[in-house]
C-alpha cells in the first residue's frame, strides 16, 4: 500500500505546551480559587508563589483531559484530517525526557505500520534534564531541586560570552543545545528507519539560530510557526491563559494553523480525509518500571 492510501497518524512530542496546559476549564476551580483570581492584581495567576497552593494534582487531573482535547496536537490533527493523534508530552518535560518516554513506549519498533506517520516535536527549553528516579522518568528544571541546581552550577562554569539567561540563571547555550541536538538526531534516526516524516520546531528565533548553526537538518523548521502567537501581547487573555501564562485553546489554534502552513509546504502528501472523530492516545504519563 502506498503512503497516499494509508491512514494518517500525527505523533506529537513536547512539554506542557504540547500537553495543552493552559486550556483550563474554569468550572473546575474552587470558589476559593475563583475569589483569589478575582482579587489577583498581576497575571499569570500561578506566577505568584502564594497562588501555587491552588495548583494541586487534583486540579491538574480534572483538567488534563481538556488539555489533551483542546491543545495544538488535536487542533492540528483536525486541520490535517488525520485518523489518529498520539501525544507524547508532559508538563515540565525535558527534551531527553520525552525521548525516554518515546522509547519506553517502544515507538522505535514502529507499532503503527498501517499508518502514514508525521512526527511533530515542539522542542522545549534545552537546559532541562532527566533521569530515571524511583523507576520512572523524572524531569528537572527548577533550581529548588538540588540535582538541577548542582547540574547548573557545574555547566555554568563554562558560561562566558556564549550564554543565555533564563530568569536569573545563565546557561552556556551551546552546551545545552548540543545535548538537545543529540536527542533530536536520535528521533531523526528512528523516523528515517520507520519511514516517518519529522518536523522539529523550537520556541524562538534565538534558539533556532543557534541550533541551525550547530546542526543543519532538513527536518528542523525553527520557530516560524510561532511568530504570530508570540506577537500577541501576553496580557491578551483570549490567546494567553491568565492562570498559567501558557496558550489558551484559541492561542493553540493560531499556532496549529501556522504549523499547518509549514506542513503543507514541506509535506504536501500528508493530508488526510478523515472528517469523523479523531482517535486520540495520550502516552505522556511516565511508565513505572
Amino acid at each position, binding site marked *: 500500500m502506498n503512503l497516499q492510501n494509508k491512514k494518517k497518524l500525527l505523533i506529537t512530542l513536547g512539554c506542557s505546551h504540547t500537553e495543552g496546559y493552559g486550556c483550563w476549564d474554569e468550572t473546575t476551580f474552587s470558589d476559593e480559587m475563583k475569589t483569589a483570581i478575582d482579587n489577583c492584581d498581576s497575571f499569570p495567576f500561578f506566577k505568584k508563589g502564594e497562588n501555587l497552593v491552588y495548583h494541586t494534582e487534583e486540579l491538574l487531573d480534572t483538567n488534563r483531559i481538556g488539555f489533551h482535547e483542546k491543545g495544538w496536537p488535536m487542533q492540528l490533527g483536525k486541520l490535517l484530517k488525520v485518523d489518529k493523534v498520539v501525544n507524547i508530552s508532559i508538563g515540565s518535560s525535558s527534551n531527553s525526557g520525552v525521548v*525516554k518516554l518515546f*522509547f*519506553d513506549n517502544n515507538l*522505535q519498533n514502529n507499532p503503527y505500520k498501517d499508518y502514514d506517520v508525521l512526527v511533530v516535536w515542539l522542542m522545549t527549553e534545552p537546559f532541562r*534534564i532527566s*533521569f*530515571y*528516579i*524511583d*523507576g520512572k522518568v523524572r524531569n528537572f528544571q527548577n533550581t529548588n531541586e*538540588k*540535582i538541577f*541546581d*548542582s*547540574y547548573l*552550577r*557545574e*555547566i555554568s*562554569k*563554562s558560561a562566558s560570552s556564549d550564554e543565555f539567561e533564563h530568569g536569573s540563571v545563565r546557561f*552556556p547555550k*551551546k*552546551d*545545552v543545545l*548540543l*545535548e538537545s541536538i*543529540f536527542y533530536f*538526531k*536520535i528521533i531523526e*534516526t*528512528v523516523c*528515517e*528507519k520507520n519511514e516517518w516524516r519529522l518536523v522539529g520546531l523550537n520556541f524562538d528565533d534565538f534558539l533556532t539560530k543557534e541550533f541551525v*548553526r*550547530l546542526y543543519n537538518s532538513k527536518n528542523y523548521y525553527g520557530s516560524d510557526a510561532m511568530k504570530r502567537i508570540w506577537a500577541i501581547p501576553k496580557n491578551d487573555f483570549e490567546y494567553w491563559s491568565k492562570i498559567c501564562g501558557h496558550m489558551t485553546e484559541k492561542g493553540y489554534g493560531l499556532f496549529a494553523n501556522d504549523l499547518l502552513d509549514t506542513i503543507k509546504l514541506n509535506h504536501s502528501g500528508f493530508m488526510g480525509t478523515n472528517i469523523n472523530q479523531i482517535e486520540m492516545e495520550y502516552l505522556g504519563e511516565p511508565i513505572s*518500571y
Partner: protein
Amino acid sequence: MNEKRLLITMGCSFTEGVGCWDMEITPETLRANDRNYHFYSNSEQNKKRFHEFGWPNRVGKKLGFDKVVNIGRQGDGISSQLKRFTERILDNNQYKDYKITIVFLLPEPARFSFYFDNKIKSFGPYNSHMGIVREYLFNLKNSEGDPFLEQLFYLKLFREMCKSREYDYYLFNLYTDEFNEWIINHFNDERYSTRCIDFAHYDTDHLMNLICGHFNEDGYELVSENMCKFMLSKDKNIKKDNKNFEWEWLGDDYSWKEKLE
C-alpha cells in the same frame, strides 16, 4: 566485491586499553590510590600503548578486519559513548564505504554525561566529590535499579542507530550477574553476551594489574578470545583473512569550537 570491513569499538577504560602500562616509564611503586595514577594514565606514551595493546586491536586482528576505530575512553558511560559515536561515526562520511561492525563493552551503569564547554563530559561514582554526582547518587538510594533503566534506554538508542545504518553489532559487559539478568529480561537481544570474562572460572589475579585494577595484556588477550568466540557463534563468516591491518583511536574530544570558528 571485497568490501572493506571496519570494526568500531566502544566502551570505557577497559576499551581504551587502560592497564597495558609501559613499565619503562611507570614507577613500580604506583598503585591505584596513588594520586599520580591519572597523570601516568594520561601520559602520551602510556596512552599509545593502551590503545595499541587493548582488546580492540586484538579482536580486529583475530577476525581479519581492515581497520579498527576505537572510541573507548576512560571514565565514559554509555550515554557519553553514544554521543561520541554520533559525533565521530554517524555524522562522519569518512566510513561510508566500509561494512561496519561494532563491539560495545558496556561501562558501569551509574555513569551519565552532559556537554560541558562544547565537549562531552562524563560523571560517575568515581567523582562523587562533585555536587551533581552526589545528588544523583542520593536520589538512587531507594532505587538501585534506576541506573539500569538509564542503561536500558541508551541500549535501545544504540540498537536503533545500528539498525538505521545497517551496522552489525555485539554487546558485552563486565558487570554483575544481577545486571546481566536484568538486561537479558528487559533488552532481549541475541547480540548481547554475558560477561566476556567469567570471573568465577579464572584465576583473575594474573590477568589484572596492580597499578589500576584493569586487565593487563594477558587479560585483554583472554577478553578478545572470548569476544571472538561469541561473535563467531553468531556469524561464522565474520572471520576473514587479512594482512593489512590499521587502527585509530578516536576517543578524544571532538572540537565543536573548531567547527564553529
